[in-house]
Structure formats: C-alpha cells, structure tokens
C-alpha cells in the first residue's frame, strides 16, 4: 500500500535565484583552489599578452609606413599611376600641380618631393636617408614631432631636419652639425622623433634644396598634395582633378593609406607572420585554460557528483562552468592588458612602438571570454558524464 497523501517533489524554483546560486557556487569553487586559479589565469594572461603584443608590433610597423600620409594634412594626393608605396617612383609632371590649383573646390595644392640620398659620415662611410622636400610657408608634408630646432630652420640655405634616433648612426649629429648629403654641404637645423618607416629615416629639406639634392628637373615632382575647400565634396573634387590629369591617379588620404597597407601585407609577409603568432598565442591560451579547467573538474569530480545527487541539473553545472570561464576571460584580460600596456610603455622607442588601439582593449575581453568558453567545453563534456550515483561508491 502506498501513502495516499504523498509529498510532492519540490517545484523547480524560479530560474533567477537558481542561476544566482550556481553563479555563487561556481565563483566560490573557482577561488577556493588558488593554484588552479593562478594556472588558468596564467593561460589567459599569456594569450592576452602574446596576442596584443603581436598586434601592437604589427600595427606599430604598419603605422610607421602610413604615418606620413596621416600627418601630411592633405585631403587628396596626386600620385603616379599604380603607386603602392610612399616612395619616389615615376615622377609627376609639375603641370599637375597647376591643374589642381585651378580645379574648383581645391583650397590649396603643394608639391612634395621624395627621394633617396646618402649622408657621408665623418668616419668615411655613408648612410641612406629619405629626403622629403616641402614648400614654405605652409610646409605641407613637412616635419612633425620636432624635438629640436624649428621647421622654419628649413628656410636657411642648405639646411635639413633629421631623425633624432639616427643621430649616432649619422655620425653623431647635433644642431648645427655639417654633413655631406648627396655630396652637398648640409647643415643640421632640427630633429624629429620617431619618423622611421621601413625605408631609411625621413630627412626634411626645403623643396628647392631637395630638388637640388635629388637632381630633380624643375618640371617634375614626386607627389602633389591637395586640400579641399571647406564644404566641398571631396570625391567630386577628386573626380574633377582626375579629369584634368588623366594619366595620374588622384587618391584620398584614406585610399592611399589602404593601398600602402595592402601592399605591405601582400609583399612583406608581416601579416602572415603576425597572424601565425596571434593564432599560436590563442591556441596556447586555449590549451592551457582547457586543460586547467578540465583538471579542475577531475579534481572536484566528487563534488560535481554530489551537486548532481542533491538535485543540480547538467544545465546548472554548465552555467557554473560558463561563469567560471567568463571570469577567467575577463580577469585574465584585465591583468593581461595591464601588462601589455606596461610593456608598451617600456618598449616605446623611435624604432619600435606598440600601437594598441581602443578596439584591442574592447575586443580582448570578448575574445578571451569566448576562448575560455570554448576551453570549458572539454570540462563540460566530462561533467555531463558524471553519474550522481558515484557518490555512493
């Protein structure tokens, strides 16, 4: 005979209190085993540091090759056809400058000279530099990040501004030092900081002096920089200029930038190298976190069995793991990003600078949380197989 007034099994409680309970238990279990916590966090931090360091170096290298375009202040560039890098290539006829200046919507247009030169060293050797010729009085495409001297020094005869970090390399330059550049006596009028592309460092000269140094005919230049009138449609102005110089290309600054980046990624292999390192970093993080969480489940297998025996469902335990993986991801990201920031500050130099955009700071916690979530799948699979009956064995 069975009991007539049987007690009912308790109804399933509201989802939120149950979630809160499992979150709390998950957190307590996680912070209880400090060694395991440290091991798992190490995996996440390692991943965050490696990925962001690689990304920072990669973006730093790219920015070195596009910084000139970013700082030139031009809305549009007239460049020779098929230009993919910011280097002297086929010349641009100077007539293009006058065509641009007379195009409706153009506020200003200035020529810019680019070319390779060598600096003779007192010791006897020579070092290459990239000579940039810029026009007074606006000095479009002129030097920035000046740490000594002034751009106005370029008005003085035979004067150039060099890169500060190359002073030793160029034979111990100081303000007022004299060197031969392409066999012409040149005076040092100032120094910039950090203007080091993949190519030799930028060295600035007045346009006419640069033309002499580079032996450029007066009817040719390297690029034409264009500023668009306020309120004018930049694309429309670009089309109008292009109609006047059909043999040349008219690019917006962002188009030129993209083209340079695209070339670098295709031709230099730094994209593939950095990509591999990034994937490697993520993979190592995934493996460490995955094994650490799995081993944590194995270590506490009896507790998970007990939780199942007293009424927890697989979904409750999955939630616990999810919470743990989220906390691992977020906490590891915060610590890792802090380390990367410190590393970036420590590594900052004219030759090497980690560039960490805000997007990296925003994406890292999301990426790491996803990675930790993925890493918890192995542990979850083990938990699903835990028989509550094991607690009686």
């Amino acid at each position: 005979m069975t009991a007539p007034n049987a007690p009912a099994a308790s109804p399933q409680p509201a989802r939120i209190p149950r979630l809160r309970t499992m979150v709390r238990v998950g957190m307590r279990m996680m912070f209880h085993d400090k060694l395991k916590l440290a091991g798992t966090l190490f995996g996440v931090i390692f991943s965050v540091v490696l990925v962001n360091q690689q990304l920072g170096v990669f973006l730093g290298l790219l920015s070195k090759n596009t910084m000139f375009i970013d700082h030139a202040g031009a809305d549009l560039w007239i460049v020779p056809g098929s230009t993919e890098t910011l280097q002297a290539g086929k010349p641009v006829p100077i007539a293009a400058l006058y065509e641009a200046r007379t195009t409706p919507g153009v506020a200003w247009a200035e020529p810019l000279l680019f070319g390779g030169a060598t600096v003779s060293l007192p010791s006897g050797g020579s070092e290459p530099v990239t000579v940039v010729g810029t026009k007074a009085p606006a000095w479009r495409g002129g030097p920035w990040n000046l740490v000594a001297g002034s751009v106005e020094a370029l008005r003085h005869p035979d004067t150039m501004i060099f890169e500060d970090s190359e002073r030793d390399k160029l034979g111990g330059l100081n303000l007022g030092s004299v060197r031969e550049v392409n066999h012409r006596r040149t005076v040092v009028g100032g120094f910039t900081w950090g203007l080091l592309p993949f190519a030799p460092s930028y060295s600035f000269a007045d346009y006419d002096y640069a033309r002499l140094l580079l032996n450029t005919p007066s009817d040719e230049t390297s690029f034409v920089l264009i500023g668009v009138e306020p309120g004018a449609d930049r694309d429309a102005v670009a089309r109008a200029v292009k109609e006047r110089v059909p043999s040349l290309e008219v690019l917006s600054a962002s188009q030129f930038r993209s083209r340079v980046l695209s070339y670098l990624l295709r031709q230099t292999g730094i994209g593939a190298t950095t990509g591999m390192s990034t994937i490697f970093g993520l993979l190592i993080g995934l493996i460490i976190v995955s094994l650490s969480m799995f081993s944590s489940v194995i270590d506490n297998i009896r507790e998970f069995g007990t939780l199942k025996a007293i009424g927890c469902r697989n979904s409750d335990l999955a939630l616990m793991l999810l919470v743990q993986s989220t906390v691992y991801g977020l906490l590891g990201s915060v610590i890792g990003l802090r380390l990367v920031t410190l590393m970036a500050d420590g590594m900052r130099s004219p030759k090497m600078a980690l560039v960490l955009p805000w997007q990296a700071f925003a994406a890292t916690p999301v990426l790491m949380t996803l990675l930790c979530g993925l890493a918890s799948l192995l542990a979850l699979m083990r938990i699903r197989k835990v028989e509550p009956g094991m607690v009686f064995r």
Partner: protein
Amino acid sequence: MNNVTERHCVVDVKGLKKVYGSGAVAFEALKGVDFCAAAGEFVMLSGPSGSGKTTLLSILGCVLRPTAGRVALFGRDVAGAREDELPALRLGLIGFVFQDFNLIASLSASDNIALVLRLRGWQPKEATREAEKLLAEVGMPEKAPSLPRDLSGGQRQRVAIARALAGHPPLLLADEPTANLDGRTGVQITEMLKDLARAHGSTVVVVTHDNRIFHLADRRMHIEDGRIQEEVT
C-alpha cells in the same frame, strides 16, 4: 516479509532487479527485491560487500536506474520517471548522507546547507537563517563560517546530516554514515540522525555494516547476493 503488505509504505519497492553490463559479463546485483519503509521509520540495510545494498540505495536515491521492478516514493513511480525529472525528484524528496561526507570544500558549513535550500528556491537570507538553525540542531551553531577542512570527521558528518535535513525532505538516505568515524562518534551521529529525522518527520534508510549502531534501527534487513534474505528484529 509479510509486514510489507501490511505497512503504510512510503518507500515501496517491488520485484526490483538491477543488472550491470550485458552478455557474458552481465552481473545481476539485485535479483527481485521487495522493500517497504513506512513514514517516519528508521530502517537499516546491512549485508556484506557486493551484496547489493548500495545498489538498492542508489536506486532509491534516483541516481541509478533499475533494470526491472517498481519503485515508488511517496506514491510517485520514480523508476518510470524521465531522466530530466530525476534531479527535481531528488531535490524535492530526498536528503543524502554519504560515507565520505561529500561536503563542497569551497563552501562554509552554513553555505553547504543553504545551497540545498537555495536550489529549492529559498531566498538567500531565509536559507542562511535556516542553515544556521539546522547547524544549531546538530550542535554546531558556532561552526557556520567554517570550511569543511577545518572540521573534524564527526563535525563534517553533522553538517552533512544538517544538509540532508535542509528543506525537510520526506526521505533520508544514508550510505555507511559511520564508516569514517570512531565508534563512539558513530553511535552519537546515528542517534542524532534518528532523533532529528523523527523531529522532521522523515523516513530514513541507512545502509551500514556497523554492528555498533544496529540497535538504533526500527527495523533492520539483511541483504545478501542481491536478495533481502531476512528481516532482523
């Protein structure tokens, strides 16, 4: 076993069989067990290792599926319940006391008890209050914040009993509750389990081979070779 039919069975087992494995390696752990426990009874199951007593307890605890037979707990056919219904059945009907205590190491004594209550939908404050009350009932009110590692074996088992009683489940299942305790503590713990279960109105099934506590049973059954051999009075 005549009294099975006479008793008001809240735990009602008929023709229970459990076979582990299949084919040549099949092992029949239970060979048609009939078992009954009345409301509020304190029943002990004893028997040698491998006799099937833990298998029977596991099936009663809804943590193991029988191969054949009927298992009804308080009128509910748990043998036929769907897999996803079992956690709720365990949570609502059964409190467990384990041989190894099985407390959650990272939770305090109070939180181990409150966990069950919170899973049952109690508000955190009420759950904590009730947990502290239960700890007082097992004589350890001052141990509420202690972690299991800071408790002795006897104290851990007291916390486990308090956890089993949390939410007043109508059935308590205890698996060798004195196995890891010295003789005196084992008897004390079992006496406490019996008294508290009675106060809470719970039916208790204890699996044990500890003859020092046999005298505390309302009824004691001996299980051997997968069959309940005799009822020892």
